[in-house]
């Protein structure tokens, strides 16, 4: 299977760390160093993402899963570690080591992100069409008609009426805003799509619709997805493989069916047993 992304010993910490907590084997008080109070939001996380695969990341709030996603999308700065994207310089260059201009380019062309909070992903006062077009513009498109037809196409995929293209997302419900975000995220056919708690807080029926659309998009475009959720039902429906995070670290990793049916780590067992 072809690898599209490789994350190697990624660490995001708030604080300088100390002799004690720099050693990744030393245990922390949750994700905080008991000695120097440094917060290790993400600690030595490594994994790979493969072509047309959906990788689930599950964990409770504060486990570092959202920080992980935001770091991969350059919203947060990685303290150490590397990430390689096959689509960027044949996966030979650590994307955290390149200039912020390059990182913008990577973000605009090779990554898509859907945030839990649509305020982070959309300009609420601009039109839906404009929001989607911004991603196209950022990737260098300068032909309005071409961008408009691409926008219509994307809205159709997301089952949003093209009549609403001029409306701003602030007029939309939460589920609709997520659909606009997804359209925007996949506008440039990125090889990797990042989904951060996209259905959290939505009504069940709305949640189902959004998940179906994500599944459809994934199948249609063979896109590789990392999906972060605290909800095992979402993970079960979408992901092939799953990573379990606890206090900034990966505690378990396997096929989603294995994680659900034969969880090994005490935390994963608790999580699975809490599934309604």
């Amino acid at each position, binding site marked *: *299977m072809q690898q599209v992304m490789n994350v190697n010993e990624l660490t995001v910490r708030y604080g300088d760390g100390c002799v004690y907590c720099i050693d990744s084997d030393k245990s922390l008080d949750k994700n905080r160093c008991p000695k120097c109070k440094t917060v290790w939001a993400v600690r030595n996380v490594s994994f790979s993402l*493969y072509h047309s695969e959906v990788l689930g990341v599950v964990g409770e709030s504060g486990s570092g899963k959202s920080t992980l996603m935001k770091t991969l999308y350059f919203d947060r700065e990685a303290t150490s570690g590397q990430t390689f994207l096959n689509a960027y310089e044949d996966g030979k260059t650590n994307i955290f080591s390149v200039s912020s201009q390059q990182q913008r380019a990577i973000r605009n062309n090779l990554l898509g992100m859907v945030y839990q909070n649509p305020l982070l992903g959309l300009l609420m006062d601009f039109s839906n069409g404009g929001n989607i077009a911004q991603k196209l513009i950022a990737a260098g498109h300068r032909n309005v008609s071409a961008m408009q037809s691409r926008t219509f196409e994307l809205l159709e995929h997301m089952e949003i009426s093209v009549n609403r293209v001029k409306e701003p997302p602030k007029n939309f419900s939460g589920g609709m805003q997520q659909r606009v975000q997804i359209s925007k995220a996949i506008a440039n056919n990125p090889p990797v799509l990042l989904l951060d708690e996209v259905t959290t807080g939505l009504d069940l029926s709305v949640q189902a619709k959004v998940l179906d659309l994500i599944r459809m998009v994934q199948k249609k475009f063979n896109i590789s997805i990392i999906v972060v959720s605290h909800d095992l039902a979402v993970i079960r429906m979408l992901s092939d493989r799953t990573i379990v995070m606890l206090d900034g670290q990966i505690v378990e990793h396997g096929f989603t069916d294995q994680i659900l*049916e034969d969880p*090994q780590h005490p935390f994963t*067992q608790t999580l699975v047993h809490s599934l309604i």
Partner: protein
Amino acid sequence: MLNINNLSKTFTMHVGNRETINCLDSVSLSVEPGQMLAVIGPSGKGKSSLLKCVYGTYLTTSGNIYYTDKNNVTHDLANMNLQDMRLLRVNEIGYVSQFFHVIPRIAAIEILCEPLINRGIGRAEAVKRAESLLEMVGIPESLWNMYPSTFSGGEKQRLNIIYGIITKPRLVLLDEPTASLDPNSKTRVLELIKELKSQGSIILGVFHDYNAMKVVADKSYNIVTKQMELVS
């Protein structure tokens, strides 16, 4: 061929009663292509666990599961990297689980097409094959475009079986394939299994129903206190 060697499976429970459950203890058996091996025995004795260990849904505690793929490469399914295992799952292994976990809000025909499309088979071809199988197991055409969540128990079970074998997998894992089927459907399903055998598939099945098993199995084992005993 499939060669299971000294397979043991232990569950360590960290929650609830916190006990260690010893489920399978040094199980060894082997199945040749074109052969079907059946495991029988009362429920709760680890029959399904054996299949799940082979499919990778359960992590093997010790022992090996050797499988030789179509390129004549032998893998140890008990100790295998996930990506290679994923490829095998897509391309060579068919698993009919006991309880069908339907993918919500997707029509039956679409569910059936998916594994074929994943293997690179064209959509038209996939639909044709799905339709012929649906017809064969006697699911009325009016249901083909419905969500399986609306199906009856027997219909779901038949869909489950054809979903597991639609790709004509080289290694077939069947967990109670004939349970809750009416006699007519049961016969059709047993026909399907025979067909797979004739195509050279390696079949490992778990049965509750001794009579059904006898029709298709070449070898059968009885599961007794975590171990296997050859019946015939």
